[in-house]
């Protein structure tokens, strides 16, 4: 089982690398940076989901994209967090590409710095937001129960 988890990590890192090159990361230069970026994304975003789905790539894909089947699972709190964490990381990294073309000439505008930072922010925000969401929902339910 550990083998399959490690293999899944490698696969996901490869996929992230390919996607970031396809989305516009430099192909021939900055190879190490792109690799580091994809490793980082997979580590902070995908680790919980990889471990809880035991490294089954197909199920991870279904979990992220085809939400009909997994709707029932994702109502559980744990999966709600995981799902939001993955999407938060991805959206954060996506938004991180925005400052790169600006002409401010700052050192941190280089690829992948902004994307790394904003994916971290996105991941943490997603956790906080889903916590708040569940908290508010619980409170509402509690209030309804009392009434």
């Amino acid at each position, binding site marked *: 089982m550990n083998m399959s988890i490690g293999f899944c990590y490698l696969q996901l890192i490869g996929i992230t690398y390919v*996607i970031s090159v396809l*989305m*516009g990361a430099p192909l021939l230069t900055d190879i190490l940076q792109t690799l580091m970026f994809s490793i980082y994304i997979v580590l902070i975003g995908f680790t919980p989901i990889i471990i809880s789905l035991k490294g089954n790539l197909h199920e991870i894909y279904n979990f992220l994209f085809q939400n009909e089947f997994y709707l029932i699972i994702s109502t559980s709190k744990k999966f709600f967090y995981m799902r939001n964490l993955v999407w938060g990381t991805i959206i954060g990294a996506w938004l991180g590409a925005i400052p790169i*073309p*600006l*002409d401010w000439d700052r050192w941190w505008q280089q690829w992948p710095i902004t994307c790394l930072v904003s994916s971290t922010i996105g991941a943490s925000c997603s956790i906080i937001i889903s916590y708040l969401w569940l908290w508010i929902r619980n409170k509402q339910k509690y209030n309804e129960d009392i009434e």
Partner: protein
Amino acid sequence: MKQILSLTDLSNDLFFEIFDYLDVLDLFQAFFNLNQRFNLLVIDRHNSFQANMISLKSYKFSIYKNFILPHIACYIRYLSISDELNYLQIILQSISFTNLLSIKLYHVKLKELKIILQHCQLKYFFIDTNYIQNEKHLNEIFKILFNQQLELSIMQCHFHTNLYFIEEKNKLSKLRRVIIDCDCFSSDFIVLISQLRELRYLNARINDYNREYMDKDIDHLTGNESLHSLILHIENIELDRLLLIFSLMINVRIIDLNGTIDFDINHVLELERNYTSFRYMNYKFLSLNFLYIIGLIFFLNGFLLTRRVILQNSIGTFPLSIPIEFNQVILIVIDALRYDFIKPNNDSITNNYLNQMPFVQELLEIKSKQSILLRLIADPPTTTLQRLKALTTGTLPTFIDISYNFIGYEIQEDNILNQLIKSSYQRNISLLGDDTWLALYPNIKFKHLYVYPSFDVHDLDTVDNGILKHLWTVIEDTRHEQLSFIIAHFLGVDHCGHRYGPLHIEMKRKLNQMDDVIRNISLSFNKSNSSSLLIVIGDHGMTQQGDHGGDELNEIETAMFIYTNKPNYFLSLNQNEKTVSQIDIVPTLSWFLHILIPYSSLGMMIIDIIPLEQRYIAMKLNFEQIEIYLKHISLTLSLSDKLQELRANLHTIFISFDRERNLTMIENLFNEFKFELQTHFRLQWSTFNVYRIIIGLILMLISCLIFLLIFMKLFNYENIIFNISLTLMYFVISFSNSFIINEAMCLYFFLQTIILISKMKILKKFLLSFLLFLTRTFLICREEQQPYCIDSIWLIKKFSDTSDYFLSFMATIVWLIILILTCNYSYLLPYISYICVVGYWFNIPYILSIFYLSIIIQICFVLLNPNHFDKLIYSILIFVVGYRFSFVIFLQYFIYYIIFNNNNNNNNNNQSFSLFLSILADYFFYATGHQPVLSQIRWTAAFPTLNSSINIYLSLIINSLIVRGIFILIETFSGQILNVIVIRKLYQKK
């Protein structure tokens, strides 16, 4: 409150509530056989179940068959099942569903269907099968449906065959919603709607092809009052039939017509009422488009300021009373020389650009009668090309100079160099430095020519060292001849600004180097006997970051330094800081060079630096030139009253009386006139008409909103947040210049995002994004992106012969594939033009004339039959796009092909698909090697290198303005044009 510790603590009601949401299989797998209580709960509850048996695996089916169904078959209300593996047959042998209310059947066979229909009273019925093809059997089924299933309220049928169900009197009463997805005859349709009394919603397809006329029952038809919405797909129907159908439906509110008809639908429009949406109402869209176009015209009128270029030269002779003052005139252009780089600065601040030209300051102090420093104000845009144009022609810049010729940069208007060549003094011209000058003046014969490429911004020294290597020999060489004019354009300061900014230590080095250049030239002046003049100017300034291009004060403020070895030449000069406009250099320089002022120059002489006794004649010369130009230009432009008045005054002084008296008064008048003139023309040529822009934008917005309202109900709300945010981002991008510069990559990023998010097969997704990735190599760089962006090597002109042949070979194959996929073999003309263009690529002479002929013939064909239009466009595209970018066109075609093919569900009707298509069209504008910059228009499309003598009439057509314009338009917007054509074609095919 009671504490709930485990699941079993929940009450039974709660479980029933939960069970209602679960499918039978899940229910049994989760709760059955847990304990006695749950068994009772699951089986004995007398409630409804829903069984979803679509795409069951066989082991799951056996669970169903053996465990579940025997217990609960009589309670199942909702059943969906696919009968591909004969499950239904097996089930029905042993079990009967008595309480079934709604049923969804896929791939069902006749026998089973009949059994079910005879035993159950259904409310909802859905069927999708292709096992039932026989008309007789279909009729049987409908007979049962309409006569026995009286409770039925919603019916949806997909039979993959034609359908007709003429029956005498059906009992059907309660059907409210019917969707029949197979062709039926109009007579059947009429029977259907006249008998279904409660029908509210109907979706059907009518096809009268091969219909035997059975109009017997038309007489006793009654209208249907309940029908509210109708979606019809019509083929091969006659007008009176359609009208009959419409007349039967009295209360229809929503109608949606699709299909093809061969008569004028406007007849129907006049007769019918109550339609809220009607796809054939093209005139509505036409008028909206018209509104949009009017808005666009308003906008362009306010935004794109145009100036008419007058291609006339000043003629006449220079006043003979003035002797030739200077034998040698040296014009040194230091790119991006800001005023404070050269100005003596008394502040105690020291940095790398202040007071770094000590020799200039020394000259100004010691030889104050021989040297002068002026502050120059350049007009935005502060780019070298535009500034050089202003410096030689004396014109003010606008967005577009309407010219009568298309050729790239070349200056067509009258200018200083042109006048120098024409003048009778035979002053020879030498050029050193920036090769932009050569692009502007390709036809001037320079005596000495040492130019260096200017595009490598990181290189601070190559150009400057190249100049310095040759400058002294050129000066020495030309001194002994009679008259000479030397231009030296140094780029080091500008490149240093771009690379390091003005505060860097390199700037100090470059400025000191420039100072040395001036020192050496002045020393060489002092040695020589002939009178010489040195003019040092900057073409523009730079910001504190070292960039230029805008209208910031730092960018437009530059300097002019003049030094002569004639003693006491600038005698009568007040030593205050003076500010002049950059175009004023043109008449002044012409004066010093002893030539006429260029025809369309708006500059006015810097009168202070001309010796007192010559001033009157200089002013007169200048005024005469301006007067001629104003006379010409005032035919199309209005002049202000004040300007007219001053002009009249000066006219009386210079031309009517022509007597020199009261020089200071004339000078004041002249300066006032100069100020008025230049401000007036700046207003005319560089101020946007904001009201027109706003009106245009509002009109366009209104038409967009109306479009939105019309199509609102066609919206599919899937992915709506994603689409709206993407559209908004696309909109917001246009407000930031960094994103505008990098728009190609932004669009690319959006496209990849849409592909990533969309619901397609993974392989298809990957293929699409990989194809897009390939197009990235064809993007070309904008000037502003320069330091970080490198053009792909095969886009640079004439890389090598073999690679050129390879590219054209690739393009040949690529276009052949596209043509085979799009054009019939029977219509040969596109192939002929294809072969001609390929021959042209491989340098076969005379072949291009055949191409033009085939295009002309194709145009005639299009006039006869508009269907051939896309083929005409293809054959023009082959020629116009050229082999370099053919591969992109192929990629684009391939992408569309993938999107539209093997996609049999209706997923692509959502807006993220249409958003994708529209962004794709915009992206391919960039991918075909364009940038939205005037300088990046590829004029080569209009100017084929003809290595053959073409028939004179043909060449007249080819070289006509309209043909060239059309070719360039098609070339520039090839991506968008292909977008429209391909989508139309492939969508129809579906």
